[in-house]
């Protein structure tokens, strides 16, 4: 105990005492020094003891120099001056002399006196009140509203706020940049956060002005990136503003010349950024976002730009979100989209361009989904056993084949960031609770049925074949077909042509779509163009393919052939509708329980390990076959 005790206290060594005495011009004997040293130690402890009382009564945890000086003063010892600084004093040592000292820099008084940057006095002490807990429940912080404060802001802060908002929303891009940068790094604006959040929540009022919306989104980004800000539940408010930009049919998007797509893309990126960095601040945020995205996606009345937003939003939230929300909705949605895309009327041109946008977005999202899923599966498979050479091969080939699209570590980081946990957290009763993952092959089959060779992901070695070869004609076709299409769309439209190219090649139904479009658009029940053109053989074929997706590939041609054969224009609409219904019925069991529908259940019984190589091996010829077949028979 004694040893422990000794170490617990500060000790002043005999030598120190003697040194001090020498400094004062006194020679000390050894025993005297020892006695003095011991006494000094004791007095130190005593003073520390009594100084802690001052600390306790000042309701602090940190013992200050002032506390110590008070204790000294009350025991009639002179206070020690010169240690009042708030900052820690560096304690330095000189090696040679074994000397330790507190660094004491000279202060240049002249410089200080003539200094131009006079430090401002600290802000005024004030009292601020907020309702912390209402009825003892929950944290009640006003969302997006300015909290009432007794004395809310100091003049300086107010000025800062005005300058910043003026700069960001003003005309000068340079000024805006500066303001955004400051917003991103300023450590003292915590008090202004509610106000900025309030400003940002004004997106609704400027939905006609893309420029302003963009600036507001940039503001969000700056706030989110500011490391000194604790967003707390303001995250919710920010997210809702961002979601507005992603999802809403903005006033600005009426004019096709307005590039609201970029805004949506940017906002989606921002959403994912907020989510990954601040998602933990608000519980259930992920679910709420997913729900609202899903709602938009499943609402056919919404304009395509909203759907586009939902898709990019899901894409930004990660492949799991895509898998959970977009993928199950795809069949239902596909029909609508198809209708739009296949409507060649001039009046539909604009809508169709939008449709292509959505198509492109879906394609990108879905490709990533496939990649990630394959990767995660292969990883888990690797972890499980080495008995799945095929799957590993598949994954590896995929990696080799699409190096630039997504770096391999990404899925890992996603998993680590806890998407899964967020999904689990999700409120009970959410409809995707009963969601079960679709095995990759089935998913691939299904997706392939939609996109055909447009899918850049292949579970084989020769990916480039399917995607790139039709690329050039498609682009040509696209540019030919959609001259008014905005230039900025290039990126997404690039994928579109694959579809059109495929359409071009197909000889079988060459005539029907061309002739068809006008009547269906008129006869559409919802008077919506995309719903009206449902009779399309392509859609029907895809439907049938879908139903039979689980079966062997040989079924495709039959299914495809049967449906076009039964498509006189007027009649086909009915079929389309019926098929829709059928498909939906068929799909659900397909998704949730495999046992119910025998044709579908044909897949799962075989293990993945078994199945994947089959795809890999068999897929190649099959795909080629389907590919050629496809190209032969798809309608133009």
């Amino acid at each position, binding site marked *: 105990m004694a040893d422990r005790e000794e170490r617990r206290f500060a000790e002043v060594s005999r030598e120190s005492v003697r040194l001090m005495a020498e400094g004062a011009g006194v020679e000390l004997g050894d025993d005297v020094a020892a006695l003095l040293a011991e006494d000094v130690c004791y007095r130190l402890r005593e003073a520390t003891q009594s100084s802690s009382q001052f600390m306790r009564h000042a309701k602090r945890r940190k013992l200050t120099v*002032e506390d110590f000086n*008070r204790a000294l003063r*009350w025991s009639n010892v002179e206070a020690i001056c010169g240690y009042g600084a708030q900052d820690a004093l560096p304690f330095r040592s000189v090696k040679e002399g074994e000397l330790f000292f507190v660094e004491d820099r000279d202060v240049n008084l002249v410089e200080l006196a003539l200094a131009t940057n006079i430090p401002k006095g600290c802000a005024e002490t004030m*009292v601020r009140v907020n309702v912390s807990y209402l009825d003892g429940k929950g944290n009640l912080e006003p969302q997006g509203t300015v909290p009432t404060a007794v004395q809310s802001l100091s003049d300086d802060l107010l000025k800062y706020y005005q300058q910043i908002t003026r700069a960001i929303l003003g005309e000068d891009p340079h000024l805006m940049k500066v303001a955004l940068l400051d917003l991103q790094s300023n450590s003292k604006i915590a008090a202004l956060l509610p106000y900025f959040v309030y400003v940002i929540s004004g997106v609704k009022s400027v939905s006609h002005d893309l420029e302003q919306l963009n600036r507001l989104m940039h503001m969000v980004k700056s706030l989110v990136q500011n490391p000194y800000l604790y967003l707390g539940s303001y995250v919710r408010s920010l997210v809702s503003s961002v979601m507005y930009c992603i999802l809403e049919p903005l006033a600005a998007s009426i004019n096709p010349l307005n590039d609201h797509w970029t805004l949506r893309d940017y906002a989606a990126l921002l959403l994912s950024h907020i989510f990954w960095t601040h998602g933990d601040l608000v519980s259930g945020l992920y679910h709420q976002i997913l729900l609202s995205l899903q709602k938009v996606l499943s609402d056919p009345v919404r304009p395509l730009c909203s759907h586009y937003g939902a898709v990019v939003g899901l894409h930004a939230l990660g492949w799991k979100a895509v898998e959970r929300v977009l993928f199950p909705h795809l069949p239902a949605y596909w029909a609508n989209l198809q209708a739009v895309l296949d409507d060649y009327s001039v009046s539909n041109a604009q809508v169709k361009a939008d449709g292509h946008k959505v198509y492109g977005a879906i394609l990108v999202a879905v490709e990533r989904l496939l990649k990630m899923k394959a990767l995660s599966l292969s990883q888990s498979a690797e972890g499980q056993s080495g008995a799945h050479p095929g799957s590993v091969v598949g994954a590896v080939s995929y990696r080799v084949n699409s190096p630039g699209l997504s770096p391999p570590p990404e899925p890992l980081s996603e998993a680590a960031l806890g998407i899964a946990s967020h999904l689990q957290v999700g409120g009970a009763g959410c409809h995707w609770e009963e969601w079960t993952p679709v095995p990759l092959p089935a998913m691939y089959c299904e997706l392939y049925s939609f996109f055909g060779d447009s899918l850049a992901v292949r579970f084989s070695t020769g990916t480039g074949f399917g995607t790139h070869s039709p690329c050039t004609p498609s682009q040509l076709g696209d540019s030919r077909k959609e001259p008014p299409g905005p230039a900025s769309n290039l990126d997404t439209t690039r994928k579109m042509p694959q579809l059109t190219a495929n359409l071009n090649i197909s000889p079988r139904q060459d005539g029907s779509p061309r002739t068809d479009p006008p009547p269906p658009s008129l006869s559409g029940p919802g008077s919506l163009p995309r719903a009206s053109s449902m009779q399309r053989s392509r859609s029907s074929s895809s439907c049938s393919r879908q139903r039979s997706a689980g079966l062997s590939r040989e079924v495709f041609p039959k299914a495809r052939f049967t449906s076009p054969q039964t498509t006189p224009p007027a009649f086909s609409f009915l079929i389309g509708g019926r098929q829709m219904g059928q498909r939906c019925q068929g799909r659900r069991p397909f998704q949730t329980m495999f046992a119910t529908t025998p044709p579908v259940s044909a897949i799962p019984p075989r293990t993945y390990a078994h199945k994947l190589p089959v795809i890999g091996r068999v897929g190649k010829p099959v795909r080629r076959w389907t590919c050629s077949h496809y190209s032969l028979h798809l309608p133009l």
Partner: protein
Amino acid sequence: MIALTGKNQSYVLVLYGLCFPLIHVAHAQFILKMAAVQGGMGDADIKTDIKTEPSADGFGNNNANDGRVLSASPGSSSSTGSNKQTAAVTPEDQQTLLAVLQFLKKNKLSESVEILRREAGLPENSLDPKANESAGAGSGGAAGIVDLEGGDASSLLSRVTGSSSAGAQAPTKGTVQSGCCPAVAEDQPDVSVVLSAYSQQGDPTLYKVYYRDLKKFIETVLDCHRAELSQVFYPLFVHMYLELVYNNHESEAKAFFEKFSGDQECYYEEDLRILSGLTKKEHMRGNETLLDFRTSKFVLRISRDSYQLLKRHLQERQNNQIWNIIQEHLYIDIFDGMPRSKSQIDAMSGSLAGEAKREANKTKVYYGLLKEPEIELPLDDEDEEAENEEGKPKKKKPKKDSVGSKSKKQDPNAPSQNRIPLPELKDSDKLDKIMYMKEATKRIRLGPDNLPSVCFYTFLNAYQGLTAVDLTDDSSLIAGGFADSTVRVWSVTPKKLRKVKSAADLNLIDKESDDVLERIMDEKTASESKIMYGHSGPVYGISFSPDRNYLLSSSEDGTVRLWSLLTFTCLVAYKGHNYPVWDTQFSPYGYYFVSGGHDRVARLWATDHYQPLRIFSGHLADITCTRFHPNSNYVATGSSDRTIRLWDVLSGNCVRIFTGHKGPIHSLAFSPNGKFLASGATDGRVLLWDIGHGLMVGELKGHTDTIYSLRFSRDGEILASGSMDNTVRLWDAMKAFDDLETDDFTAATGHIHLQDNSQELLLGTYTTKSTPVIHLHFTRRNLLLAAGAFNP
């Protein structure tokens, strides 16, 4: 009190309580001062309770040493019936007496000399030769005081004349509580005399053996006795260690400490740390903690069986060393009945001087509330008030009665209305009462299912350090005391703070006008906050007067200041404490206030007196917090000695001592009905006390740091506690108190079983981001307000 030198050993023989009957008070004080009194020493083996009221005979108490009776005084045997040795006066005792006589004579107190001599039955002529003899033997004979060991004589004198905090209190106590009881007067003897009690010594190397022996014995004793007897360890350990240190056996002391300090209860760690730093006799002088150990007897409650066991063992072993310490420094409060369990003991122990003696909590306390004098008033005012509220004041009355049992004279527990004089109600007070009633009708009934909303007042930019906060009862003003010596007041309503106009301007006002009160205010000075300068040290305590016209602040500079909230200037500086004043509070009826501080005394003041009306002395360490009972007849003080004391304002007596906290107490709160007291300490626990029965009735565990604020909701259903750990916690007070009514409360022993039901009672925990909660307040409608400074 006299010290005589024996051959090699010095004895300090202490007479206590001899003075009052013998000599008149002034002299008594003088003697008290000159010769510090070590009191209560003869009681060690007394099994029956000793009445602490002043006994008629000055020698009613035994000498400390060896339990010998000091003299053949007739009274001694009456009060100490079971003394073993009622032998004749020993030579040492005689010498003591003679020395006293000589001292008295020297100071020309011939009358006292006569009385004393008569009492002691000494021959007149015996004085001189013996006195000479003893004076010759001693070295400090010049002063007439025969003292021990050279240097101590002068130090004693200097101590006496000096104004150490302990010394200064003796006279004040005398004035306030004169004739109260010797037991109180014995509390603060002088330092070196106290220390000299250690001068007797055995073989230092045997201490370890003694202690180990006892330890072995207690460890082998029956389970039911072991817990009780284990209580002895700590005080024995401390005293044996100090004895070793005092007699300059430094290495033995260290070895002793090293060997046995690990055995002590963990809640004594703080004290042990202080002890461990103390290894030299020189250091003992002036060490406050040490003083505390010495100046009071460590009180233990032990059942008779256990005690007999211990006694027999010590006698068999001839273990005089330990027996001496037990008799000298310990007070063993023996009770008949079942030995207590370990948990029961742990619940009550932890204070600096052991538990409270049982009789200390026997006095009747009038904890009931005073009758509200103007309950009728709302009826008159009703007409002018809003029409639709006519019924409400009437409804209010029965409710009030049920809540506070304020009905006229029917509450047997309420003090009489004029037990202490209270200020007359002014018209403005009556208006305020009416406001209060109206608000009370809108009060939310709280409960476990209906928790209050919490509003937080955050002090921003309080870089100078916020040290105290108070809110007015109507929650219209908030005041902060700061470490930079300022007091700041904010208005938390839209109504701004205004000063009264200057005298010249006031002359111009039409004094007859109805709105004269409005006219006297200077609109130019309106602002949301006012700063008041005056203190020269951190402001540790702050309190609004009930009428919101005054503000009190107590500071490190040793003063309590009264500020006017009309002029925002200082009106009075109450000086008296001379040391930091940790806390102050206004009486709920105004006019009186209480303050307590580093000098270990609490003082009761009236605003119009510059000197205190009462001085409450008895705590062994700093008084850290002070609270008025709702009926204003009592004052509770919490202290660093880990006890809470309740003082009667009327008599100045200590009527309750509550022990059980394991750390300095920093917050107190009375329940609105006056029956219960809640206390919070640095150990993060809240303890609940029944005032009437003087018992601990609950323990609330949950906080992880010092509890700086406690408050009951207006109806007493909820207890809110705010702490350094950045949380506010709400506790189900109703349940905590209800549960105990079902217990067999009248159990005379007062040993209650505390169930560990903190988690059931905890209704909610509310956290702040980084703001320690240092004040809590329930508005009249039961909205909870919390306050603290943001701690970036």
